[in-house]
């Protein structure tokens, strides 16, 4: 494998919204390397989405600095860094077909007074095919299931051909099968050289597919490290505020909640 390069570096970053007294991010220093999956794990309200917006470059730190490809500059101003983002909740525009919506991922590549070229259209159709939703291309977004919609949103972000994908809770509210296929997509994308950061509140999901894990807790310092180093019973119980137990079966790590009476 090629030597890994740093995509984003946090140097002693502090962040909090002005009206809140507590800091959401305190003194955070991390490196995000390419070709990896990073999971941000934490309870609801622990600051996962804020972390996403910092990575996206939409929010700026109050103290410290965030370097994109080693330079302190808003990544949107630089053509060479393309970051795709899927928010947890999104107002989906009504009256679009799947194909029309996925094609919007080409916005960064199309001149503002122009329209998508045949090449752009080809990319969108190939990605629909790759994610097995080609047959849905003429369907209206309001007519497809939640799992399908999630795939369509991922197709949109892949059509953008980003170096870094930020997915906010991509598998929350999905059934097992949809969850599985979304995880398969993420693993595949990593193999193709992409970097993926996704948030979840499900510890097993992090164990399954992540390379690095960041643990977040409201008002507390975050922990960021290689998965095996950070996913300990002690850390998980502290950050998820539920007693957790790790067992091994067939070389698989399984995370359980520990109940006293069991």
């Amino acid at each position: 494998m090629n030597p890994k390069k740093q995509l984003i570096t946090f140097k002693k970053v502090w962040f909090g919204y002005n009206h809140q007294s507590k800091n959401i991010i305190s003194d955070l220093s991390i490196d995000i390397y390419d070709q990896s999956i990073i999971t941000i794990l934490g309870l609801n309200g622990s600051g996962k989405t804020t972390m996403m917006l910092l990575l996206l470059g939409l929010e700026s730190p109050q103290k410290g600095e965030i370097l994109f490809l080693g330079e302190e500059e808003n990544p949107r101003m630089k053509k060479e860094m393309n970051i795709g983002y899927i928010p947890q909740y999104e107002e989906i525009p009504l009256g679009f077909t799947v194909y029309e919506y996925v094609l919007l991922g080409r916005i960064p590549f199309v001149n503002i007074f122009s329209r998508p070229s045949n090449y752009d259209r080809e990319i969108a159709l190939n990605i629909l095919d790759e994610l097995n939703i080609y047959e849905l291309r003429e369907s209206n977004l309001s007519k497809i299931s939640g799992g399908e919609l999630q795939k369509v949103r991922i197709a949109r972000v892949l059509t953008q051909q980003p170096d870094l994908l930020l997915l906010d809770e991509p598998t929350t509210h999905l059934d097992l099968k949809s969850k599985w296929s979304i995880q398969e997509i993420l693993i595949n994308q990593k193999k193709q050289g992409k970097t993926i950061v996704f948030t979840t509140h499900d510890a097993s999901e992090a164990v399954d597919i992540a390379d690095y894990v960041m643990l977040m807790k409201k008002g507390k310092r975050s922990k960021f490290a290689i998965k095996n180093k950070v996913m300990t019973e002690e850390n998980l119980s502290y950050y998820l505020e539920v007693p957790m137990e790790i067992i091994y079966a067939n070389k698989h790590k399984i995370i359980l909640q520990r109940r006293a009476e069991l």
Partner: protein
Amino acid sequence: MKKKGFLFLILVFVFVLSLFLGRYPKPYFLSIKDILNDPLAIKLVLNLRLPRVFAALILGISLASAGFVMQTAFRNPLADPGILGVSQGAGFGAALSIVVLNYSSIWLQIYSAFFGVFALLIVLIVSKGIHVGNRIISQILAGIAVSAFFSAGIGFLKYIADPLSQLPNLIFWLLGSLSSVRWENLILIIPILIIGNVSIFALRWRINSLSLQKEVAFSLGFQINKEYILLLTLSVLITSCVISIAGIVSWIGLIIPNLARMLVGSDSDNAIPVSMTLGGIFAIICDDFARVLIAGEIPLGILTAFIGALMFFLLVTKRNNKLLK
């Protein structure tokens, strides 16, 4: 593609047919022979009817495209081109010129267009100071306040207007009409209307970015501050120019974009051209009724509101409609 071509043909047909509809030398339809045999009729067609039908065409196109942009920008199918106080602003400008400057058609036009754009400027400044909700909410609230402010101004000017000479002019203007349009009025605004509409047409795929959530649009490199303001300004500019020659013609900018979305979906790449074509057809037909139906002139705004409201009712009561879902 077929739908677009078909609608365009209808537009051309309606435009040409309208040149043969009139009340001189006889009411309703005139054959080519009727017109060619009468030198006065030829003059009428070239100097009065042609500019008027042309004005109706560009009014329909402009209001429909501006309405579509506003509905997309505010993610609300019930928004119309006047949502940011533009209509009332332009109305106030016209009223001011009728009452204070004693009505000259060119100055009325300039005042009206100026105050329309001025209203947008106030809305953008005022909305910065509103800290309720997001960008959409604060701009709509500012639009409501600015509209009310200019309505109060219009009310006051009506009150002090001379009831015999000024008030009828003012009322007729506020109802919306193309009866006084001549080539010289059109020439002033045509360049702006063409630049505005051609730009919106060229931006038709990009306009989709407005329907995406802020963070997503940002990640796609959409420069909200520049592109959003550009689109709003283009829409307001063409709306103000149209109001400056026609008065306040309501409902076209509300109903036509919805009709377009029902026909071809919300992707602005298709919906903008369809909206513009339908707007042209609708405005020309309404104006034909306004000038031909009775010996006098029916204000265009009354007809567009009447027919528009009927169509609106049909749309929202139709089963499986896509409008409000």
